[in-house]
C-alpha cells in the first residue's frame, strides 16, 4: 500500500493505493493521526486505487472520523471502487461517512 498526501484549497487530500489490511493499517493510522495532531482536521481520503479493505482498515477510518468529528472538522471519502462500496454498504459505513463520487466532488464539498 502507498499513501500520498497533497494540500488542496480547503482541505488535505490523502490517497491510498493498494490493499489496506492487517499488514499495513498501522501506516495509515500513523499518517492520519499525525495529520490530525497537526491540526489538519479537514481531510478528504481518495480511495480510487484502494482495491481491498479489511476490518482493521475500516477501524482506522472509523477512528479518524471520530477524532475529526470531536475536533469539529470534516472527514470525507471519495472515488470508492465497486467492491469497496459494497463492503461499506454491508458494514453500514455508508451511513456514517460522507462519500463523494470523485475527487472533484469531494473537494467541492469542503
Amino acid at each position, binding site marked *: 500500500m502507498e499513501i500520498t498526501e497533497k494540500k488542496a484549497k480547503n482541505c488535505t487530500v490523502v490517497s491510498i493505493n493498494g*490493499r489496506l*489490511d*492487517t*499488514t499495513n*493499517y*498501522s501506516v495509515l493510522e500513523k499518517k492520519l493521526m499525525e495529520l490530525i495532531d497537526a491540526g489538519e482536521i479537514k481531510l478528504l481520503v481518495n480511495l480510487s486505487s484502494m482495491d*481491498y479493505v*479489511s*476490518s*482493521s482498515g*475500516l*477501524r482506522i477510518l*472509523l*477512528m479518524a*472520523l*471520530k477524532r475529526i*468529528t470531536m475536533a469539529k472538522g470534516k472527514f470525507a471519502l471519495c472515488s470508492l471502487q465497486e467492491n469497496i462500496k459494497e*463492503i461499506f454498504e*454491508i*458494514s*453500514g459505513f455508508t*451511513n*456514517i461517512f460522507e462519500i463523494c463520487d470523485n475527487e472533484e466532488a469531494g473537494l467541492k464539498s469542503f
Partner: protein
Amino acid sequence: MAHFIHFTDPNSQEMENYLKSIPACPGTCFFIDINKSTDLKYTGGLPDWGRKLNNTFNFISLLNDFPDNIVKGIGDEIMLFIPDERLKEKKTIKTYYQLLEEIYSTVYNICSFPVPGMFLPCKVSIHYCTEVYNVTFFKDANDYYGRDIDLTARLMTKAVENRIVLSEKFFVKVQNDLVNLGLPASFGCLSNVSGKFLEQFRGVPESTEYRVLDA
C-alpha cells in the same frame, strides 16, 4: 470434508479401526456470541431483531474473510473453525496475529459505531486447538469435535460485551507470529491485552491460562 461416523453395530471393530485412523485437525476455533438479541425478541418484533442480527452477522462473516469457515450457528452464537491448512492458503489473512487483529477490529467497529441500534454487541472466545477432529455423525454435514472445541466454549464464560477471551495457547501463537514478522510483542491490538489469568473450567481436568482483550 468431514469424516462421517455412522455404524449400526455399537460394538463394531470396524468402527474402532475407523476412529483410530482419523487424524487430528489443528486450527483456530472462535465462538462469537451476539449479545442482547434475546432481550430484543421480547421488546420488539422480527423486523427489529431480525434486522440487527442480519447486520451483525453480515459484519462478522464477510469482513473477516472466512464466511465458509462458519461451522454452525445456534441462535445468536456462531462457531468458526479455521484449520491451519486453510489459514496457509489464504491470501489476505495468513497468520494468527492477523486473525486476532481482524476479529478485534470487527468488535471495535461494532461497539464504536456512531449510529446506535444498527448492530448488536459481541463477545468472543478464541483457542488454538490441537485435540480436534473434523468429524460428523450426520451425513453430508461438516463439524469439528474434540476437547479443545469444548474448552473454547468454556472460555466464553469469561467473556463480556465487547471482550475477546483468548487462551494462552492462542496468545503464544500470536506472539510467535509477531516475532516472525519482526514486530514488537505489544504491536497493534496486543497493546490492550491483559495479563494472564488462570481458571479451572467445569469438566476440564487441568487449569487453563487465558487473557482478555477489550475493544
